[in-house]
């Protein structure tokens, strides 16, 4: 079992937990993920690592309550324990040869983008961060980004905080204004990453995106997390768990990835409703 050491509510739907998992804490690097099971007979879900404290032996996860499993996870309190917690899985985000980086985070994806921004900052890289949320209520991690960014731009879709509009607006302005980035790293909803790649393409800046497909084992066994890259006109199958989760944003077939992520949408909606009812009646 893996004890929950601390739990912090970041906004009405997003929660942060620090989990005691010393081996994972010692090894994890920004960009990697873990797989957990809340309870025996629960499903395995992947979550990207939001930070570690190797000395304390804890791993930070930040998750949005979107379905049955995250609902059950959110009901757990500090002092409770998770059934299973395995990692670090996937490859760390590449940082070599980058002097100026633009980190683009969307919604709960900012939780994953944050340790990446912190790592670049630690390496002395000039960091521009653009973080976007639907509205002010959903804003998370502003202080953390502020501390590790040379420049921070906060966007809300409805204009209730920061600038109004989505994250591609300031990105395009910066690129059009002649801003030079060695790499743009986009982490958020698939549709956001798709449009970041499209916005950056005319300027030829390499774009890295972090994929979060449905997966089971996370070690290269099940093949459920496969994604398609289009490379030199050829379609190439890759597995997010062992080949990713970071990929070249220009190569990803985002439409297919979006479709595949909805494979169990009906089932998940029903399961979530049942879980909510279960807790209400309890």
């Amino acid at each position, binding site marked *: 079992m893996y004890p929950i050491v601390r739990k912090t509510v970041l906004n009405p739907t997003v929660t942060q937990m620090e989990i005691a998992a010393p081996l994972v804490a010692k090894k994890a690097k920004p960009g990697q993920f873990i797989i957990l099971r809340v309870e025996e007979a629960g499903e395995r879900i992947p979550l990207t690592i939001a930070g570690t404290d190797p000395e304390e032996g804890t791993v930070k996860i930040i998750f949005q309550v979107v379905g049955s499993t995250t609902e059950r996870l959110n009901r757990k309190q500090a002092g409770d324990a998770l059934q299973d917690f395995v990692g670090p899985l996937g490859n760390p985000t590449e940082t070599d040869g980058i002097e100026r980086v633009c980190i683009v985070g969307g919604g709960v994806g900012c939780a994953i983008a944050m340790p990446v921004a912190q790592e670049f900052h630690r390496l002395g890289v000039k960091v521009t961060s653009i973080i976007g949320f639907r509205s002010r209520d959903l804003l998370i991690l502003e202080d953390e980004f502020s501390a590790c960014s040379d420049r921070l731009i906060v966007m809300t879709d409805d204009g209730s905080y920061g600038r109004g509009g989505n994250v591609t607006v300031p990105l395009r302005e910066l690129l059009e204004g002649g801003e030079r980035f060695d790499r743009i790293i986009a982490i958020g909803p698939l549709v956001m990453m798709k449009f970041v790649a499209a916005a950056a393409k005319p300027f030829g800046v390499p774009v890295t995106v972090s994929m979060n497909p449905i997966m*089971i084992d996370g070690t290269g*066994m099940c*093949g459920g997390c496969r994604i398609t890259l289009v490379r030199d006109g050829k379609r190439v199958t890759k597995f997010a768990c*062992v080949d990713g989760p970071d990929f070249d944003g220009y190569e990803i077939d985002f439409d297919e990835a979006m479709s595949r992520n909805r494979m169990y949408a009906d*089932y998940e909606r029903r399961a979530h409703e049942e879980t909510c009812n279960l807790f209400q009646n309890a």
Partner: protein
Amino acid sequence: MAIMEKKHEMPAQAPAVRAQNFNEVALGYDAETAVAEAQRCLNCKNRPCVSGCPVNVNIPDFIARMKEADFEGAYRIISETSSLPAVCGRVCPQETQCEAKCTLGAKFEPVGIGRLERFAADWHNARAQGRAVPPVSNGRRVAVIGSGPSGLTCAGDLARKGYRVTVFEALHTAGGVLVYGIPEFRLPKAIVAREIETLRELGVEIETNVVIGKTLTVDELFGMGYEAVFIGSGAGLPSFMGIPGESCKGVYSANEYLTRSNLMKAYLEDPSTPIMRGGRVAVVGGGNVAMDAARTALRLGAEHVYLVYRRSMEELPARREEVEHAQEEGVDFHLLCNPVEILGYENPDDPRDAKNGFVRAIRCIRMELGEPDESGRRRPVEMPGSEFDLPVDTVVMAIGTSPNPLIKSTTEGLEVNRRGGIVVDEAGLTSREHVYAGGDAVTGAATVISAMGAGKTAAKAIDEALSGK
């Protein structure tokens, strides 16, 4: 007394009944039948059956005990050489191993060795009192990577010799392919759990949720005090055909389909892990994994299951028994057919239609057999213009795997072959000192018993290396 020409028949659930449930298909002999079947053994001097067994079970000796109805004695003899008797009695392809060598087989059906082994193991497991006693520890530590058949065998053999063995398992449950791959109706999970419990009683420690190559590396294991490492990490990434439409929703690898059903228990009434149920299913491939997937599909409520295989029945690599079971249960074999495309549903008028992107059919082409290829089997050749569509909702690709990259990419100096399999000598030693390997990580997809044989060979070599024999 004249010898019975045929094996005593294995009682089994009726096909129409069993295709609707996940309970074990073969029900096992009763004691009387087991003794009668044992009496068919000629106890011949040259013991050809033993050489047919990858772990060299003393078959005539255990059968001799069974003739006397000394089932516990029979179990003891089997467990001297096999760490997983109840598993082997169920899933070994005896017809190509021990039973293929049986002297009786020259004229009649061979002795039902597998059925007798299963009976002895089940007899013991149902009656065993108390815990297995661990031998005196020699204080030396060995790490085993993977808790599938090769790892468990290696761990069991070393534990019996007094080694302190830790098995590292990436998943949350021990057993490897025995729990994620082979379905409940062929190998009940409780049987696997019981065999693993016996190993624990012998002192084997099992650490789940540790991915070697990620959580820890092979080199770190040596730093932690392990003196030898056995890699039994199993088969890896599932293969796909590379045809259009394989990314449609409803296309699974057999690994994913079976893992969802078995390990994640999607076969239960109200699972937390979803799986596509019902409808029409096409399974592509002809191995045991394909049979397992097709029969699982039936039990998940499929209205029709096709098995699509590019060669003919003669070349089909699955065990005969599995093929017969699948046919009896109603799997519809489309032989000499090969998929060329998977067709997805697209509603031209409504891009938000929930069905968009799901499988609607699999397009196949008919094949004929040409000249033998390098495998010695006749090469299937496409018959131009013979394409046809099978309307299906789910496609399961059961066409093999390629080795997992996690360990080789994090272990310097570990040599792999062209296909990515770990290179070992006849004792299971890799290119790294004190690092051994066996099972699918070396051979690519093969059988449970050959993996067990490799685990056994490596355990012997590890013992010799560490004890300076």
